[in-house]
């Protein structure tokens, strides 16, 4: 069966169109693969096998009657952050204990309308807060990649660790993910997959459990650039139910894959050359520059002077919004409730029991920075810094830069239970140092695998685009992909 799960979305689509493959066959192949791998990888928190088969059957019927949608019959995994009607939706938190929504997120509705098949819900950091998928109530996800000759478990990155691991381990054809500070791009880079965070407002946030509303954005993690383009086209929409969703037609992103980058101006921001950056990351970046240059792009050095302030500003804005967004988990209307003598004790015990340590830490920080006397010094200041960060990008785009190339992460995947990171939350936060500016400015960013570390682990490059110019990112990323090739982990599970 492994040949079937190896197929990209584009390849499976061709085979199904030619009637060489049915969705039921493909879905069964994935369900078997999940059965075999999930005990080792822990990518899925719920597998919806019956639902998947029923959806696949309907897809086959639709294909037989010639009414196939853009993703007809393609089996996908869904991050546990997306509300799926009647199906486990807990943001991998205990506080949403046994929550099954009576509604569907707009993004997943769009996927089902285009014929996609749901395999199940994917593991993630609790409420998308984490960079290693270790904060999940359902335990860490194990990266399908290992250091050559080692059997130590590595993190897949986070928060969309389940999505990235499932795609890399061929446990789904593609996965939905979300990105608040790097939660699509960092795990994609750690697993040799492609992940794109589109422009803020491109995918509806309706039905996605909120972490930080002004930063959250859904996007796909896929095997290659083309698959990411195919998925994003289906996920994106204009949604009357999300005030911040944009009124713009969704382009045919796939048409941009393979498009020439000749004459494009690619910016290389000098501020991304951070102190202590490993040589292999620097080398990877230079390699990317060379590939794009060879493909005809013009390389220019640029300056984004407020880059270093993006991460500290993020760790004010995101926890502040989160502290408020997570106030609704109070044990009254859904999820966990711990009994208390009175309402106050019920709240405090429920929330202390239901939220994990990292989530509590961020709620505390967020509450503190918004509290009386501190608002101006922290939150207001951070939002002003954000204006400056966005202005940096606007300036370089106004100067004619079409896209910006940076490393995706400062390192390759690290071990589960890394002692240094466990001891110092800020060390963990530094994982997002290259990705977080993109969220702060609302821009699109794509992570594409570009090489491997000396340990044989995948490394990714990031391309940042103008608002709503995801097409240029797909074009440039496919240049890197073409030059670097695809990266697939050796099967050990």
């Amino acid at each position, binding site marked *: 069966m492994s040949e079937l799960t190896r197929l990209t979305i584009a390849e499976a689509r061709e085979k199904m169109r030619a009637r060489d493959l049915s969705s039921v066959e493909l879905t069964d192949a994935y369900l078997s693969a999940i059965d075999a791998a999930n005990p080792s990888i822990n990518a899925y928190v719920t597998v919806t096998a019956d639902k998947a088969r029923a959806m696949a059957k309907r897809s086959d019927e639709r294909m037989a009657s010639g009414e196939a949608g853009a993703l007809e019959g393609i089996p996908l995994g869904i991050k546990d952050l997306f*509300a799926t009607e009647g199906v486990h939706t807990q943001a991998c938190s205990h506080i*949403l204990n046994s929550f099954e929504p*009576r509604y569907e997120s707009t993004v997943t509705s769009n996927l089902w309308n285009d014929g996609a098949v749901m395999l199940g819900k994917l593991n993630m950091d609790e409420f998308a807060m984490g960079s290693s998928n270790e904060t999940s109530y359902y335990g860490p996800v194990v990266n399908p990649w290992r250091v050559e000759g080692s059997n130590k478990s590595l993190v897949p990155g986070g928060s969309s660790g389940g999505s990235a691991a499932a795609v890399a381990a061929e446990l789904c054809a593609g996965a939905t993910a979300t990105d608040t500070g790097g939660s699509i791009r960092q795990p994609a880079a750690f697993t040799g997959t492609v992940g794109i965070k589109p422009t803020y407002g491109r995918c509806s946030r309706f039905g996605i459990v909120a972490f930080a509303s002004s930063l959250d954005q859904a996007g796909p993690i896929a095997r290659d650039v083309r698959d990411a383009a195919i998925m994003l086209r289906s996920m994106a929409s204009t949604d009357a139910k999300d005030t911040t969703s944009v009124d713009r037609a969704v382009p045919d992103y796939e048409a941009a894959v393979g498009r020439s980058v000749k004459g494009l101006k690619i910016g290389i921001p000098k501020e991304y050359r951070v102190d202590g950056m490993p040589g292999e990351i620097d080398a990877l970046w230079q390699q990317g520059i060379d590939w794009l240059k060879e493909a005809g792009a013009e390389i220019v050095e640029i300056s984004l002077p407020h880059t270093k302030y993006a991460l500290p500003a993020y760790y004010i804005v995101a926890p502040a919004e989160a502290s*408020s967004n997570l*106030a609704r988990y109070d044990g009254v209307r859904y999820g966990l409730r711990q009994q208390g003598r009175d309402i106050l004790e019920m*709240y405090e015990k429920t929330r202390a029991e239901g939220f994990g340590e990292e989530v509590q830490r961020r709620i505390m920080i967020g509450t503190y920075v918004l509290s009386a006397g501190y608002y101006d010094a922290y939150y207001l200041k951070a939002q002003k810094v954000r204006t400056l960060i966005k202005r940096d990008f606007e300036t370089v785009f106004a100067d004619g830069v079409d896209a910006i190339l940076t490393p995706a992460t400062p390192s390759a995947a690290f071990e589960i239970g890394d002692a240094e990171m466990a001891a110092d939350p800020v060390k963990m936060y530094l994982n997002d140092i290259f990705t977080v500016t993109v969220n702060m400015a609302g821009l699109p960013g794509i992570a594409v695998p570009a090489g491997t570390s000396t340990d044989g682990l995948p490394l990714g490059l990031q391309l940042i685009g103008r608002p709503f110019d995801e097409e240029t990112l797909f074009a440039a990323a496919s240049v890197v992909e073409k030059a670097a090739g695809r990266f697939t982990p050796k099967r050990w599970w």
Partner: protein
Amino acid sequence: MTIVDTRTPDPKRFIPGATGDWEVVIGMEVHAQVTSKSKLFSGASTEFGKAPNANVSLVDAAMPGMLPVINEECVKQAVRTGLGLKAQINKRSIFDRKNYFYPDLPQGYQISQFKDPIVGEGKIVISVGPDRKGEFEDIEIGIERLHLEQDAGKSMHDQHPTMSYVDLNRSGVALMEIVSKPDLRSSDEAKAYLTKLRTILRYLGTCDGNMDEGSMRADVNVSVRKPGGDFGTRCEIKNVNSIRFVGQSIEYEARRQIAILEEGGSIDQETRLFDPGKGETRSMRSKEDAHDYRYFPDPDLLPLEFDDAFIEELAAHLPELPDDKKARLIETVGLSVYDASILVSDKAIADYFERAAKGRDGKLVANWVINDLLGALNKAGQSIEETPVSPDQLGGIVDLIKAEVISGKIAKDLFEIVWNEGGDPAAIVEERGMKQVTDTGAIEKAVDEIIAANPDQVEKAKAKPSLAGWFVGQVMKATGGKANPQAVNALVKAKLGLED
């Protein structure tokens, strides 16, 4: 924020205490439910009195991943209200989250407007009186701001021994919080302010003002001071739900504070509740962190922006406001200040009057509405909305008087028949033979008979012409009130040989 004291201390309003006179200072925050079909940020209905949680959408229940989308009509209603309060309309305003935990607040925050409200400073002119001389005093009360916010749900504490019930039907209903400046100086002024505000909102159609259904509630800030002195520490009386209770709670609270201060104590700034049964205010169970609401702009929403054309369009279609209507009734219809004030005090009465007065003698109609209709309604304990006599029916009665078909006296009887039985006044007059007699022959006959039967009175009347009225009365009696009084008067005078 610096507070400017716009008022001159007026001894009429002082409250005497053991240590001398005191002055009460009052500011009000009125929560007025916006008249709209659906909620501020969801498509659920605002209808009153539905089954528990029937008017609740997934957004109102704060289900994970739900997002607010603003109701455009609520924005328009807020702007209309701002225009009605002669206030500054802010073309850019921001929705903030006010964070606190309470079981009837599903999101854990209320979406409100904190730093940048949709409406800024405005004013309301209230009329206090009449005093002993029958005069009204007009006072301008400043409006600090008006902002849009969500209502909370409802908790019920008396249904179960250990649990509270939560119903979210009101959760997310649009409210306008209208904040006055601390310009009020007596409970009467406070009541007049609330009454006037409610009248304006009803004229505008932006809030139905039904306080018993919770469509309008007031938080009343009360402090006392020596006349003209520095502002004292204030207490906030929460959620007072009738105009009468506003008056009572201020009276009680002012005296409570005066008593404390006169005994050398000091006032704690706190939130209090009014208990209508006891007529007292009491301290609410204090919440140590109640005042740290951690306001910040709601990241699910964008700034609310509109242009001048949007405001102008709403201004162009704004209904006539009570003060304007009053001025018009005085100037063009010729009503007295008193009559005009009464008619405009309630939009329904004003509407009734205008319909009945259309194409008729406005002063005569005003008399009938104020003296007869409102008198009868008051006696029956009914509101203008419940009147059994329609404006057209009242207008019909007035028409019959003007056409001299019936006398004023008969008209009173006719009004009573219409009140009790309904029907077309003209038809009733026809059917029941109530038309006044204008046939001079018949009247002359009656006059002659009365004069012949009362020679003594004739003599007296000749000596003292004012007694001629006695003959008129007798003739009217004899004709069952149907004789035309002017005709009778002229004939009596002629027959008695009196100068006209």
